[in-house]
């Protein structure tokens, strides 16, 4: 049994961590929060140069050809530092979708650019408020063009291509849209986490090509989101661990009533519970990583398990990090709110917590009861 990363993968983690320490300090995240840019373009290019964006993309498509375990390692590190870059949209969703279901032309057109940091993608599924579900899709694909609106779309403002869920006749299809084409309108949306931009995209007869077969849209989208859920789970895990460390460090540093506040059981127990939720999430994410890297039959269950557990952990750790900091945690100047914002934004992306809870039990019921043990 080996439910752990290899030494080489751990070396990659250390390398990425060093790179991010240098190139993505809290000030860089704050610059996106407070400044006018939608993402950190220099950091993103740096990640491309490091080979991180193409880690799981085969060499024939300009990638590095490592694998998904390496991508999990990278995702955790990006999550730790709240990297304000569109990796989830472009790599976990965009590249994964193309690798899973794209045509040779589609792969050749975009995968090399994704690896090189020259193309940003977005995952355009949502149409307004409420749980994501097939019946809500109104945007249409006529075989050549798409028309309609999608919102909210993470990184929609800066993306070069979009993967769009559309109605084709009476069925749902996934489409690939070059956003430099005609009839694209973008509108930035204010959000709880400005370090990952949100936008509304409107298409009016915009040229598009189908990904996979007609009517396969929801099926492909589900498969892609399962894979992305594990990678985003690792981002959440990284964020949870860092929020726990911040709380622990503050509890060691801060004095009250003549002692370190971490010596008070009321504070110590909050931190112990944060460790518990982060540990459960790590173990569940490793299960997800195994399923992702081996394309195991358990992948759908493992994905939902990792996703629910990682969402729990990041929200739990980020909110309690503020609690441990007390009033200082609620100031703009401290970084606690950056983690709080990201934890709540990530809890909603590609399906909210209750959506994944429901998926997990639906899949366990459909599968075998064995999965419950």
């Amino acid at each position: 049994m080996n439910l752990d990363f290899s030494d080489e993968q751990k070396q990659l983690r250390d390398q990425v961590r060093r790179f991010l320490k240098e190139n993505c300090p809290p000030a860089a995240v704050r610059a996106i929060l407070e400044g006018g840019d939608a993402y950190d373009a220099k950091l993103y290019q740096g990640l491309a140069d490091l080979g991180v964006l193409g880690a799981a993309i085969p060499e024939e498509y300009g990638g590095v050809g490592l694998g998904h375990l390496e991508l999990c390692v990278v995702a955790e590190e990006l999550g730790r530092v709240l990297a304000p870059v569109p990796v989830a949209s472009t790599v976990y969703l965009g590249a994964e979708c193309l690798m899973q279901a794209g045509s040779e032309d589609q792969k050749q057109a975009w995968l090399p650019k994704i690896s090189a940091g020259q193309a940003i993608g977005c995952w355009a599924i949502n149409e307004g408020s409420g749980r994501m579900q097939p019946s809500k899709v109104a945007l249409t694909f006529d075989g050549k063009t798409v028309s309609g609106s999608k919102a909210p779309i993470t990184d929609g403002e800066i993306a070069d291509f979009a993967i769009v869920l559309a109605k084709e006749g009476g069925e749902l299809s996934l489409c690939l849209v070059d956003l430099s084409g005609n009839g694209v309108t973008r509108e930035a949306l204010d959000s709880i986490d400005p370090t990952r931009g949100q936008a509304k995209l409107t298409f009016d007869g915009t040229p598009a090509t189908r990904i996979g077969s007609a009517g396969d849209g929801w099926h492909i989208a589900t498969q892609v989101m399962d894979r992305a859920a594990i990678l985003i789970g690792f981002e959440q895990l990284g964020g949870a661990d860092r929020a726990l460390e911040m709380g622990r460090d503050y509890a060691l540093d801060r004095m009250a009533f003549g002692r370190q506040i971490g010596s008070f059981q009321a504070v110590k127990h909050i931190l112990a519970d944060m460790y518990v939720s982060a540990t459960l999430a790590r173990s569940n994410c490793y299960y997800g990583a195994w399923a992702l890297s081996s394309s195991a039959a358990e992948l759908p269950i493992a994905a939902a398990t990792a996703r629910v557990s990682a969402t729990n952990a990041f929200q739990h750790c980020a909110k309690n990090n503020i609690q441990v900091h007390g009033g200082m945690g609620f100031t703009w100047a401290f970084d606690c709110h950056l983690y709080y914002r990201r934890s709540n934004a990530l809890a909603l992306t590609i399906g909210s917590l209750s959506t994944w809870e429901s998926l997990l039990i639906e899949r366990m019921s459909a599968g075998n009861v064995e999965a419950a043990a």
Partner: protein
Amino acid sequence: MDFNDTPQEAEFRKEVRSWLDANAPKHLEAELKRASFGSNGLESEDPIKASKAWQKKKAEAGWACLHWPKEYGGGARSAMERVIWSQEEGPYAVLSGLFTIGHGMCGPTVMEWANEEWKERLLPPLASGEEVWCQLFSEPASGSDLAGLRTKAVKADDGSGDWIINGQKIWTSGAQNSDWGLLITRTDPDVPKHKGLTMFFLRMDSPGVKVVPIKQANGASGFNEVYFDDVRIPDDQRLGDVGNGWKVSLTTLMNERLSIGSGMSTGFPELFKFCMDMEIDGEAATADSGVRSKLAQFAVKQSGLKYTGMRAISALSKGETPGPENSIGKLVAGATMQELAMYALDLQGEAGVVWNEVSPQNGRFQAMLMRSPATRIEGGSDEILRNIIGERVLGLPGDIRVDKDVPFKEIPTSGKAKA
């Protein structure tokens, strides 16, 4: 990443399987699998006899006390081999419950602190299950604060060198079935509490020892009170120096059985099956969105513990020491089971209040409800476990101990307000 055995592990697993296949008490398998929560559930045979018979069989073939050296009746196996054994032993492991404390805690303490003569006398029959041990540590007034114990040991005034014990222990599992007990006492009340303790072992049939079962809140009696009334112990049954009992007790407590790989039960598989079988408004309960959310939260705790265990096994398999992540096991399992039991009863509606043979799964969830408060206290309460995680894993400072340098006899014994 993979869940596969190494070739050596697979070889060992094969060996274990074939021995179990030929030797396990298969006539008890069904009954052991049905074991209700908190007992081994044997009715067709005397549970003690069945446990001893299985242990003896294992010992004769070299499968007893895998972590002990061979000269004391153990198997001298690696930690990874122990994990594989326990995975394969499956339902028959329930029969080892009688020996858990002896093999996991008392034995290692004897091994570390007793002289060679005693080790040769005590350890082999403990390994083979011929003699059962219990641990006499907790007292009514010292649970989490174990070092505050009051059971007194004083030198007999007849020049024999013997010790005379008076006092009371509590929460002693298996005292009524035990041949020997590991006993921690106070020999000096004039020094701070940790410094005046001394460890002994004694025959449980010594004159003056009285074992009284405790009727628990759930109506069962798995634990005992043990009273000592002028019990005499020879000085050569002392473990470690006089006044060094705290250090000896740490050997015992650090040897708490490695639960790695066995994974503590949360009750989730049972709840999931219950929900698969039950209907709400003509549909399976698992189709209800409220039920799904609750089940999913229990499910990720169950799987989180399972894969945390597997991460520890992975470390063992590579010859490394597992990290601190296993410290979450009982904390998560206990609280989850309690909450889960309440939810299972909630799904039964008002009928959840009924606890009899027609209750779903033979009343298993009602039994969990009534037993789970103990899981959150025994072997380190939730609060103590959180302190351990906070201090040993996260490196937070310990609480200030106001009784640390105070002579034991001056420590207040009652919190009642003075009139």
